[in-house]
């Protein structure tokens, strides 16, 4: 089956500034795909290219127009700190924003849209928060609201930008388990962008290491090796295993 997204020898950047050079990879339906790399390495640039907000300087980026007879929609979950709401929008109102595109110009949301909003809230286990103000929620609750809003768009691909950044351990695991559930139970294609290596090491199936001169794509075990990570971060990094989980330790002895 043709991939949903395909980069063919694509060079990405802004004006004359090249951020990622000659990259090729594909994301297929049902993938759980991670993008990892240091801050400023080009993850956001890659994301913008996937979302169609950035045209490649060279090469091609193909995004399939439709899937299963439906237009291909992205459910985008931004970094929650990028939302600075002074106005006390309720959770219901925030999630309804995910329906605005479908509602269309000059129309008000209908009962069907309200039902989809309720269903999305139920899906991420926060239906009881529908009347709360978004700005007054905890970080984990806000993240669930933003995921619910993305689900309300009825997406083919869910894209999450640093979803666990700045969260305490239990909230972080809870969000990662929720994303895994959406992937496993709903067969949703997921793209997870993060700088936290543990998030991708133990959750995603395929991963891209994003760095200007070191772009690698493949299965987690092939890509997240001590050698690759040590090259990427320019420091010794050790990949250990504990109770079936991968642990990535900075400062370990390279190769041991």
């Amino acid at each position, binding site marked *: 089956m043709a991939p949903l997204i395909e980069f063919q020898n694509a060079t990405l950047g802004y004006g004359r500034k090249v951020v990622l050079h000659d990259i090729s990879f594909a994301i297929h339906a049902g993938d759980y795909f991670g993008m990892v790399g240091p801050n400023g390495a080009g993850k956001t640039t890659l994301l913008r290219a996937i979302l169609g907000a950035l045209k490649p300087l060279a090469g091609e980026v193909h995004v399939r127009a439709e899937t299963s007879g439906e237009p291909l929609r992205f459910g985008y979950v*931004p970094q929650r700190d990028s939302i600075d709401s002074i106005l006390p*929008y309720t959770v219901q109102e925030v999630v309804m924003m995910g329906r605005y595109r479908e509602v269309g110009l*000059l129309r008000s949301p209908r009962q069907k849209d309200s039902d989809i909003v309720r269903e999305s809230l139920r899906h991420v286990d926060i239906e009881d928060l529908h009347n709360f103000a978004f700005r007054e929620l905890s970080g984990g609750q806000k993240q669930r609201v933003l995921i619910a809003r993305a689900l309300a768009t009825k997406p083919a691909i869910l894209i999450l930008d640093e979803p666990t950044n700045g969260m305490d351990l239990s909230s972080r695991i809870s969000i990662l388990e929720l994303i895994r559930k959406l992937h496993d139970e709903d067969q949703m294609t997921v793209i997870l962008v993060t700088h936290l290596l543990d998030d991708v090491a133990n959750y995603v199936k395929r991963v891209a290491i994003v760095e200007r001169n070191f772009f690698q794509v493949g299965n987690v075990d092939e890509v997240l090796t001590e050698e690759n990570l040590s090259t990427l971060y320019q420091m010794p990094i050790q990949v250990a295993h504990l109770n079936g989980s991968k642990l990535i330790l900075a400062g370990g002895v390279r190769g041991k």
Partner: protein
Amino acid sequence: MGNSEIIITILREFPYALYGSIIVGLLCAFLGVYIVAKRVVFLGAVLTQVSVLGLAITFLPITPLSHSLGSLIVTLIAVIILSRLLTGKKIPRDAVLGFVFVFSIAVRILVLQKTEQVETSEIENLLRGDILFVTPDLFYIMLAVFVGAMAVHLLFFKEFTYISFDAETAGTQGFKATFWEMVFYVIAAIVIATATHMVGDIFVFGFLVIPPLAGLLLAKRVKLIFLISMLIGTLSPLLGLFLAFKFDFPSSPAIVAVASALLAAAWTANMARKA
């Protein structure tokens, strides 16, 4: 003069002042909620000064434009230039706005030095907005702006809401964030330019900030914030004009003082609720 006589005098002799200040109050209070929410309050202050500069320029003998048109053109040009300058990363936004603010005031003073058409006090009155002498023409222009601005905002409420809350995600869903931002600021520029000509900079800037703040203090729902803000935007000119007549105050400052008193009441109510 008794209270009923004051009311009758205002209604009979100054209907355009009364209705004009109400529609400006209402409209600025509505737009102000977005302006406060977007954290661009200083932009409101800057645009009022730019529109005053536009008015001042129309007093130059070489300028063939009417006061309204001159103010509008200069404010629109400023919005377009600011939309480019404010997205740059080299210079902070508030520094750009600060520059435009002080530049507008400085140039206005220089321009007024070179005008000989009318008395300086007359010009200053016009620049400050003399509510009591609002002409029917100016009132109907303002009414048209009010209807147009409210219609666009009500028809495209979803777009303005989404872009002001989360422009990045709205963009991924096909909403042209830059376009809607520009529509918002162009409408704001038209409203501010027309309203400043009619009621002055103090009134306009005051109503972009004070009623929305009261709404934010009192309400826990977004729709209620808009309603409270617009209610204060409507009541303050009514009460302010009455008090200006009764105690012989200048009208614009009296109206802004009433709005400020209502804000103080809102703040007190908010504190009492928390206690």
